[in-house]
């Protein structure tokens, strides 16, 4: 093995380790939000964003805030492409998250901002949602 090969191998393994570490951190933060959702602290809102029913840890709060910023960016680009408001694009996603992505025991908020716990029964969606 030449010295050059050794250096390249070392650099490659360093990259691999850092990639693995970052994916672990990422998985941890995502599962933090998932755990908070399962605990009914964080939940989906009819407005298309995540919200807090209870008091989150600082780590969960910053992760939720980051998700909401990215969601808003996605809603903004869809709104621009379709000629609708960001609020409407967000509400369209909110309809779908409430309709199919809230599981039993998780919290969710309707348009009035009131929090509910999902039961076995389907969520009564806002009137504007396509049923």
């Amino acid at each position, binding site marked *: 093995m030449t010295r050059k090969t050794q250096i390249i191998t070392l650099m490659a393994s360093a990259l691999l380790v850092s990639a693995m570490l970052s994916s672990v951190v990422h998985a941890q933060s995502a599962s933090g939000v998932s755990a908070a959702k399962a605990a009914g602290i964080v939940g989906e809102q009819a407005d298309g964003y995540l919200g807090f029913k209870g008091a989150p840890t600082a780590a969960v709060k910053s992760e939720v805030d980051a998700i909401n910023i990215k969601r808003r960016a996605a809603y903004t680009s*869809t709104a621009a492409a379709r000629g609708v408001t960001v609020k409407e694009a967000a509400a*369209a996603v909110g309809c779908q998250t409430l309709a199919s992505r809230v599981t039993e025991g998780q919290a969710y908020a309707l348009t009035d901002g009131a929090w509910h716990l999902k039961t076995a029964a389907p969520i009564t969606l806002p009137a504007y949602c396509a049923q």
Partner: protein
Amino acid sequence: MTRVTYLLSAVLALPLTGCVTLAAPEKPIEINLNINIKQEVIVKLQKDAQDIITNNPELFPK
């Protein structure tokens, strides 16, 4: 001449007999167009909304 005058006054008086009195309703009429317009927009955005969710799984944790 008098005949024409009679006829003219009869024609002129005609609209007066056909008067319909309109009374303002006691309650204000509420037409909520907001809901319908919004639903139309939401229906139009259904596929886009689904795409946002499936294309960004990290933004929609279980």
